[in-house]
């Protein structure tokens, strides 16, 4: 038995115009020096994040995601490299000027970080106080923000009286108070259950669409990326190892770590595990192959299967099928056991490839010893 490598066709990446980037990170390096031994948390990362997009950063624990994102608002000062936000080079600013720029960059956290001694109302009002804004203006702003996050009736509650999802909504309202252009989310949904996660993601999507806020999301849940991001970067050991449109990443993951994450988001992972298991072969004819097909931007799967089956006289039995919407585009996956004459099988596969459908032969029983 042998696993036949996949063949991909390369498509041109969308060129990113640096001048129009909302956030531009250039050669960011961050080394924590602790008693002589340095921890290289981020090693030379360059990224451009466009205005109005939702950009995801994924990676395992310790990959350097938080450190990188905290470099965007300089909560962490990079050891070297430039941070340019909205055409201002933050790394050059005085601390006073930096604080002014930070008002354009909201941030929410896994642990919510609400002020326990303040009510929901006071938490949201916090960034507005001492800014010269009048009481009435603050009141109006806070109430409209609370309405936006659907928590108007909790204005006088204290954080300890709220659920995790409600706390995160308050944190979002507070982050929005200074009308930021950017929202940084560090594992903002990691402390929440799946349903609450979905509602928070919906809220993020809403503020992205209605307010045009650029969002950077750190997560280790690929599901989160799939649900709301347009582009994603994968980090490993302080470096970005792969980045691109979420759809492309899901359709054609290149790096092992990317495949790992992509598989974690669907049940394809189980399938691969299944194939590792020799017993799967038991019921399969000598000449059979297990074939994975990927349907990009189309759902013509079913018709194709019956057409191929008829025309080439091969038996196709479906063992796994899935269609999902990623960033508004459909991505289908079909795994079949194909059996028939060797030449016919080859011809069938060639035909499918001709239809610009990606074919990966996961297992070829015919070529096994």
């Amino acid at each position: 038995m042998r696993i036949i490598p996949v063949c991909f066709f390369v498509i041109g990446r969308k060129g990113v115009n640096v001048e129009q980037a909302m956030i531009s990170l250039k050669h960011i390096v961050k080394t924590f020096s602790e008693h002589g031994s340095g921890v290289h948390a981020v090693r030379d990362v360059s990224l451009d994040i466009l205005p109005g997009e939702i950009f995801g950063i994924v990676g395992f624990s310790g990959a350097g995601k938080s450190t990188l994102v905290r470099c965007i608002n300089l909560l962490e000062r990079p050891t070297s490299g430039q941070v340019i936000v909205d055409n201002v080079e933050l790394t050059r600013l005085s601390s006073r000027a930096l604080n002014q720029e930070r008002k354009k960059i909201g941030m929410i956290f896994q642990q919510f970080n609400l002020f326990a001694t303040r009510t929901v109302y006071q938490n949201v009002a916090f960034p507005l106080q001492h800014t010269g804004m009048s009481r009435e203006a603050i009141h109006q702003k806070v109430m409209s923000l609370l309405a936006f996050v659907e928590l108007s009736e909790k204005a006088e509650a204290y954080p300890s009286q709220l659920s995790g999802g409600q706390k995160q909504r308050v944190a979002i309202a507070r982050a929005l108070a200074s009308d930021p252009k950017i929202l940084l989310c560090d594992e903002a949904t990691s402390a929440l259950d799946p349903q609450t996660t979905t509602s928070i993601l919906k809220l993020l999507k809403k503020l992205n669409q209605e307010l045009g806020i650029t969002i950077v999301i750190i997560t280790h849940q690929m599901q989160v990326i799939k649900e709301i991001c347009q582009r994603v970067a994968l980090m490993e050991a302080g470096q970005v190892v792969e980045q691109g449109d979420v759809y492309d990443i899901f359709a054609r993951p290149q790096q092992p770590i990317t495949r790992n994450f992509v598989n974690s988001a669907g049940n394809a992972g189980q399938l691969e595990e299944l194939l590792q298991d020799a017993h799967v072969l038991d019921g399969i004819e000598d000449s059979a192959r297990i074939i994975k097909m990927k349907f990009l931007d189309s759902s013509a799967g079913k018709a194709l299967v019956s057409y191929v089956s008829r025309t080439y006289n091969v038996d196709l039995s479906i063992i796994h099928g899935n269609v999902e919407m990623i960033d508004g585009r459909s991505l289908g996956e079909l795994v079949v056991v194909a059996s028939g004459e060797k030449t016919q099988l080859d011809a069938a596969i060639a035909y499918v490839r001709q239809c610009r459908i990606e074919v990966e032969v996961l297992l070829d029983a015919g070529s096994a010893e």
Partner: protein
Amino acid sequence: MQEVLNNLFPYVMKKPDQLWKSVVETLQMTAWAGVFMFVFGLILGVLLTVTREGSILENKPVYQVLDKVINIFRSIPFVILIALLMNLTKVIMGTRIGVKGVIVPLVFGSTPFFARQVDAALAGVDKGLVEAAQSMGIGPVGIIFRVYLKEGTAAIARGTTITLINLIGLTAMSGYVGAGGLGDYAITYGYNYNRMDIVWAAVIATVLIVSVVQGVGTWIAKRSTH
């Protein structure tokens, strides 16, 4: 009632003014020293917190000096501190005896302890809150007042209570410089003449004062916790 008191506290009731005067002296010393202790201790405690490594106004030299000075003053016994500070006391207060003469040593004796209490209280303020405020573009002054002090109020109230109770303990030694107070009352009129009822009166008065301080502290701490 009067009769019961006369029987239980014969010597106290002979000169009730003495007891009353001692209570007033103890309260005066505690109140004056307490106010300065609170202000200076709060400032020093905040400085310790914000100049510590990794904090918002990180400053190694300042932190090191404060840390050492506080430790030194904390290790000097109060009675020796009174002697050590006599010249400074004279300069500041114009006298080194009486209630006035003991305020300076009391402040020096209690402030370092309170600074540590404040530092510990502020260490309990979640670092995430400081970061959240930083991410909103709030400067160091705003973070000190609106985050550290506001969020640390309950813990600071508890630290203040403990320090005030300690301070009341220190005032008991102020008899050395003729400042009077309940400690002096118990020793001079009770111990020296072997009159236990006077000692008991001093104990009861002290316990009452401490209870009130404790009660107020707990109330403030509770009120500022949600």
